[in-house]
């Protein structure tokens, strides 16, 4: 009789951590998409109904979460480009993949700071 091992796990290294984060951010974006379509579906029931739903999404907390959404989109998008380049370019390399990962992360953080600051500014003015 063969047994199955109690746990399947492997050492956490940067490539693995980013893969897990990519999956999680993908789930987050899929959740957002469903919410987005649900909100838009109220358009079919007339303007008043749509306005009523939209008003609940105008709260500062939701607006703050939108900045988080920007972060998810930036991470998933830019890291996705990195993955495509890794598939079709010479970037899948034990010595250098962490470097490309660092460049991707710097790009994500810079764009997030610029976009997030602008979003925060509009939030504070209104």
């Amino acid at each position, binding site marked *: *009789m*063969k*047994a*199955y*091992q*109690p*746990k*399947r*796990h*492997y*050492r956490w*290294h940067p*490539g*693995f951590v980013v*893969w897990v984060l990519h999956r999680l951010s993908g789930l987050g974006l899929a959740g957002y998409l469903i919410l987005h379509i649900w909100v838009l579906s109220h358009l079919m029931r007339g303007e008043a109904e749509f306005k009523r739903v939209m008003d609940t999404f105008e709260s500062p907390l939701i607006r703050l979460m939108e900045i988080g959404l920007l972060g998810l989109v930036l991470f998933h998008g830019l890291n996705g480009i990195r*993955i495509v380049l*890794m*598939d*079709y*370019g*010479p970037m*899948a*390399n*034990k010595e250098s*993949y962490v470097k490309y990962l660092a460049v991707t992360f710097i790009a994500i953080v810079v764009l997030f700071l610029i976009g997030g600051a602008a979003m925060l500014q509009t939030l504070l003015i209104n």
Partner: protein
Amino acid sequence: MGKVTFTILRFDPEKDKKPHYQDYEVEIRRPGMMVLDGLNQIRWEQDGTLAYRRSCREGVCGSDALNINGVNRLGCITHLEDLKTPVVIQPLPSMPLIKDLIVDLNDFQDKFFLCKPFLIPKKPLPDLEQLQSPEDRRKLDGLYECILCASCSSSCPSYWADPEYLGPSALLNIWRFVVDSRDVGADERLQLLNDRHGVWRCHTILNCIEACPKGLNPTQAIGGLKKALVSAKF
């Protein structure tokens, strides 16, 4: 010269219901001792019931791939001095256990043979040897060295999740023949791969390049296969 503690996963299918860990003390008797030397010391002097695979003891046969301190390595070329203690030794992750550190590699090997790991030559065969230019020969570097130890495939989360996924090792070996200028079987090999259990199950997690004890790059080989499939389509 001191002692090192080995924590080894034990499982005897005739006695145990599930695996457990057992500690052993290994004496460091000379500099440069490998993990395999420690396992041999345990088996030969302390506990003859410990089961593990070994053969060439110099990193060529691929028999003693083990999960050592959470990383897949070959026991015979891993220096004890480089490891944190206690040294935790487990069988390759995700593979069904047969006994102690021995795992069932049938599925892994079936997948290797599925990829037709032999040269499919041009017909009619030449009278003498098939020549290859030095440039074409160089394309095989980093591919032909695979020793089929299963370190890469057993480290791959896609391989754990999908029992039908061929895995990094089989895919590297397919790429080895697809890029070979003497081989004409590229099309029939690529046909095997163009579905969700083929190359597209690779999510570039990079565990395989971290794991390979020969320093090969299965992710890049799979990337080559993906490119070949895409360019065949367009």
